[in-house]
């Protein structure tokens, strides 16, 4: 919302300096976004007098002028055709910034002759587009005086500051200059001037009548008023009106149109003017049937949907109600008879239609926030009075369809509650005075909001009005008491702790944390088991961000591809974030996913570098699971999802159903699709899935350590190549649970050479078993006995044999 200071002062009697007004506006909740104050930008320009002007010896179009300035006579080279002796001019001395050419003036030499400043044109000072010559000042202004003071005297509108403020959606009243003035007056920045009274006496009945369909009258348009003015003379509006509109960025069109724009911004009262000679019959306000087409004033064609409000005459639709008028019945310079419309359009109906038609007009903006319904006829008369004054003509009696809707309502003012909520002492009398200054009626503790404040819908809104006028800047912080005495209790839930632990564990394993978008493209989502309509965004910002992700992998792979494109081939990336199995709020799960791409590190002189493989991913998955307290013994399942390498990936599972993590090499097709140069391995941990410990105690089970020496025994077995090492180990461990402390594979022999030695489809697995005696040192006999059991168990479980 833009306005000028002088416009504001048309409604507000005040001597307050501009800065005080600006501060108050922002503090009141009418946030000042920009101020253009020529008094500041032009402050350094001064008045000067050209004593003489001689042609430049080396340039036909330049003059060498001797100029009397506030600091004596200076020599200035000037190229303006009107530069001549005997005129008063505007001077930019060296060091002055000239906004129109975005330059700070220096001392220069032009074709060998020094020049100490510049004489300015209007365009160079952004006063107008005038650039035919330098400004010639009228009268005998004092040499050396400020140019802005000259402007203040001769054309004050040129130094009128323009203020742009942001209006929150609850304040339609502040979309008019008068509403802004009222707020400032309530704050004590001056006095609100009385409302002008329109004395419009219609002398005849309007030729154009208005009806509102019954269903529209109920909600969409409870009131429509209009007057016909015959014999107007349209044309350019007066200079003051044009200046006002220009200052806020509007293009003057004609007096009639300019008046409607003026009222939109002065009183938050949008109006429409029909050329009465182009209206056939009466006007009818109705809901469109759908399909009606109108060329609107923005010269675009719009098609009505059923239920949008329209104003029609015998020729068809003439106006998109509350949003924009139509070209066919619009006013032009030759309009002689004008029908002025002032109606109240319902915010919701207007908003829906405006959004659907994608028209952002000043009228729509105001009606959908709520204009003052009671001001509808008054606004009409004020506008008609101005038309009569500026365009002449004769005005009809008012045409009224419907009636001013009753929006009166009362809320209780609890002055104590105000102080308790805000935490600031505000005298109850001041509270009442504030409300009254804003136009509220206060009777006892009952408060009636003014008709221009549709946003006030309860006692809490009264508190807000009082608080903002009193100024929240004055609020002084008051300590919030602690909830309990003593040492603060921890606040994280077990799951929250687990999330943080998972995140920091993966980072400690050398992965760089990423935060990638929750939405990805459909193809990537589909590749990872998602991409259905259930997770589709109805209005995506681009096709790359159309579906909620089913997995963190696509985002990380895309990140890897981007980094590879930048020349980084190897990386370890991870993310801890949500994935979405479906489109309902409860179909979201937190996952920790790590991705390893390329080699374990850069090339090095130690030979430490190797390609990442599935066991890197598995180890990291296990480290995360261990950190978040998952049980140590997990099943390794193989029926993996499609995006994994079918032979080189697995799932870590607690029982057959509760899968805690997946790990493995990514499917080469997936890598190709995602543009990642492999090898690439990954893990994904479902961090909420491992059961949370039930025991809340801190005591750990006693540690039992045997003083007796443990014995390690190695065995090698020949088994089928597809026998899982885990099966073999579990069998070995099961041979004597009391005695066997641990067993692990320390070597495997596979491939062609192994098969050549041990037979086709065979491999050898070498394990070491640690025997921990508890009662007495083991004898050779004991060891032999347990060895025999291990061999028997393993052979039974795997179908293998001890390697000879």
């Amino acid at each position, binding site marked *: 919302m833009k306005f000028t200071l002088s416009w504001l002062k048309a409604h507000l009697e005040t001597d307050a300096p501009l800065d005080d007004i600006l501060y108050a506006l922002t503090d009141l909740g009418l946030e000042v976004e920009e101020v253009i104050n020529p008094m500041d930008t032009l402050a350094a320009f001064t008045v000067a007098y050209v004593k003489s002007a001689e042609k430049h010896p080396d340039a036909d179009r330049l003059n060498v002028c001797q100029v009397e300035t506030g600091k004596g006579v200076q020599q200035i080279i000037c190229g303006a055709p009107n530069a001549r002796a005997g005129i008063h001019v505007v001077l930019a001395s060296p060091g002055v910034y000239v906004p129109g050419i975005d330059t700070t003036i220096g001392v220069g030499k032009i074709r060998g002759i020094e020049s100490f400043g510049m004489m300015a044109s209007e365009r160079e000072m952004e006063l107008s587009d005038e650039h035919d010559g330098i400004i010639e000042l009228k009268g005998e202004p004092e040499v050396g005086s400020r140019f802005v003071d000259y402007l203040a005297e001769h054309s004050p509108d040129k130094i009128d500051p323009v203020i742009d403020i942001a209006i929150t959606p609850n304040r339609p009243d502040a979309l008019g200059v008068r509403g802004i003035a009222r707020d400032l007056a309530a704050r004590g920045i001056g006095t609100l001037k009385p409302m002008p009274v329109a004395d419009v006496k219609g002398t005849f009945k309007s030729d154009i009548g208005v009806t509102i369909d019954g269903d529209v009258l109920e909600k969409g348009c409870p009131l429509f008023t209009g007057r016909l003015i015959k014999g107007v003379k349209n044309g350019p509006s007066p200079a003051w009106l044009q200046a006002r509109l220009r200052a806020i960025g509007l293009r003057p069109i004609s007096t009639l149109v300019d008046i409607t724009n003026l009222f939109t911004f002065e009183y938050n009262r949008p109006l429409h003017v029909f050329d009465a000679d182009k209206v056939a019959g009466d006007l009818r306000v109705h809901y469109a049937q759908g399909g009606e087409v109108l060329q609107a004033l923005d010269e675009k064609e719009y098609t009505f949907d059923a239920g949008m409000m329209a104003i029609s005459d015998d020729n068809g639709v003439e106006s998109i109600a509350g949003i924009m008028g139509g070209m066919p019945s619009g006013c032009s310079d030759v309009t002689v008879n004008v029908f002025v419309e002032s109606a109240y359009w319902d915010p919701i109906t207007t908003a829906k239609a405006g959004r659907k038609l994608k028209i952002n007009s000043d009228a729509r903006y105001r009606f959908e926030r709520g204009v003052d319904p009671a001001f509808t006829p008054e606004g009409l008369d004020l506008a008609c009075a101005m038309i009569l004054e500026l365009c002449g003509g004769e005005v009809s009696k008012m045409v009224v369809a419907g009636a001013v809707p009753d929006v009166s309502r009362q809320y209780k003012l609890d002055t104590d509650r105000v102080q*308790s909520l805000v935490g600031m002492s505000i005298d109850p009398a001041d509270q009442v005075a504030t409300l009254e200054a804003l136009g509220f009626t206060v009777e006892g503790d009952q408060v009636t909001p003014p008709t221009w404040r549709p946003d006030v819908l309860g006692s809490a809104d009264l508190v*807000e009005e009082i608080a903002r006028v009193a100024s929240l800047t004055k609020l002084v*912080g008051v300590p919030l008491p602690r909830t309990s005495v003593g040492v603060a209790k921890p606040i994280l839930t077990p799951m929250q702790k687990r999330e943080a632990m998972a995140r920091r564990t993966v980072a400690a394993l050398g992965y760089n944390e990423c935060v990638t978008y929750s939405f990805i493209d459909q193809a990537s989502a589909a590749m990872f088991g998602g991409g259905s309509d259930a997770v589709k965004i109805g209005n995506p*910002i681009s096709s790359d961000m159309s579906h909620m992700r089913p997995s963190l992998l696509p985002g990380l792979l895309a990140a890897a591809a981007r980094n590879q494109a930048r020349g980084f081939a190897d990386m370890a990336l991870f993310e801890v974030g949500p994935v979405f199995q479906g489109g309902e709020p409860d179909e979201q799960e937190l996952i920790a996913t790590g991705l390893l791409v390329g080699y374990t590190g850069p090339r090095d002189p130690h030979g430490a570098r190797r390609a990442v493989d599935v066991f890197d991913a598995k180890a990291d998955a296990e480290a995360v699971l261990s950190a978040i307290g998952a049980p140590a013994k997990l099943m390794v399942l193989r029926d993996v999802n499609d995006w994994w390498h079918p032979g080189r990936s697995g799932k870590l599972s607690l029982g057959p159903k509760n899968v805690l993590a997946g790990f493995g090499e990514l499917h080469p097709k997936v890598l190709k699709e995602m543009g990642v140069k492999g090898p690439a391995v990954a893990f994904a941990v479902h961090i909420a899935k491992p059961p949370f410990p039930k025991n809340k105690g801190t005591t750990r089970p006693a540690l039992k350590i045997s003083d007796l020496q443990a014995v390690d025994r190695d065995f090698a077995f020949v088994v089928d190549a597809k026998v899982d090492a885990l099966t073999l180990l579990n069998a070995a461990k099961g041979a004597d649970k009391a005695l066997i402390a641990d067993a692990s594979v320390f070597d495997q022999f596979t491939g062609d050479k192994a098969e050549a030695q041990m037979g086709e489809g065979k491999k050898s697995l070498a394990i070491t078993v640690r025997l921990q005696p508890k009662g007495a040192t083991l004898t050779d006999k004991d060891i032999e006995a347990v060895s025999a059991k291990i061999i028997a168990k393993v052979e039974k479980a795997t179908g293998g044999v001890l390697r000879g």
Partner: protein
Amino acid sequence: MNGLDDLKAKYLGGIAAAKDEVALEELRLAAVGKKGEVALMMRGLGKMTPEERQVAGPAFNALKNEINSALTAKKAGLADAALNERLQSEWIDVSLAGRPRREGTIHPVSQVTEEVIAIFADLGFAVAEGPQIESDHYNFDALNIAPEHPARQEHDTFYMHRDAGDNRPPHVLRTHTSPVQIRYMEKHGVPCRIICPGRVYRADYDQTHTPMFHQYEGLCIDKNVSMANLKWVLEEFCRAFFGIDDIELRFRASHFPFTEPSAEVDIRCSWDNGQLKLGEGDDWMEILGSGMVHPKVLAAAGVDPEEYQGFAFGMGIDRIAMLKYGIPDLRAFFDSDLRWLKHYGFAALDVPTMHGGISR
């Protein structure tokens, strides 16, 4: 006894000059071996008179000991020399890099979220979370944003697809973390103190906006909580978070449908050559929105607004991370550029705590 002195001089000289263990062994055998000169001389003791023996015995022994000591010392010396020689030959170029080790990092969003949690935990605020695909009810209606309220349009909402025939209003990607307020109060009741950090979504993408970003919501409901308490909490937070004692905040009236009164909060700052400094200067920078929870919001969450009141506020996590750590571009937060992750990331073990400090 001159013979002894000669012998001594001969062998000690020989030992000192010995070049290696073999020469040394030869000398040992020649001197103190079974058939060595000293041994032979000692055998002659038996033929001596007791008087002679009393003189010669200790002299022979002394000579023997002296030679043995010299042998031992020389042997150790030779071993040291040999070791030194070997070690000299084992020289390697220690200026070579160590074996490469990956260094992981924590994303600034995660780090700053933990910083915020640590500070508010000290003030007794718990952490609450909620879904990111959210119902129209929780994201808007329950927060006093009616369907046609202009504020809804200003939210640039992402709507989820709805199948034909499913007539529920489409779910949305939550546009703010405020729905968590309602969910939390519904489930846990009041009084309460919570913060709700997390991802939020708005259909906006330009220099300073990304369609996904992070916010945290603060909510404090009790019987006597006032806006003055809110100001104190925010001042304390900013002091702790930015690590600047003389932080100054300014409350400015504003409007949010879910709070009343509402205030935007500015922080005093200066811009010096594009460098932002908080707590000084004449500029004010908006950092958050806040207010007293609207009675309709409390009622929507099943809380009696006649009995309870309190404040709520919302702050951008990415934004305060940018301010605090001087990160220039929001879009880079979500680009996963390795160079960025390493430069702006935090060490894995660098957990922010109140006792160890919030800032890095």
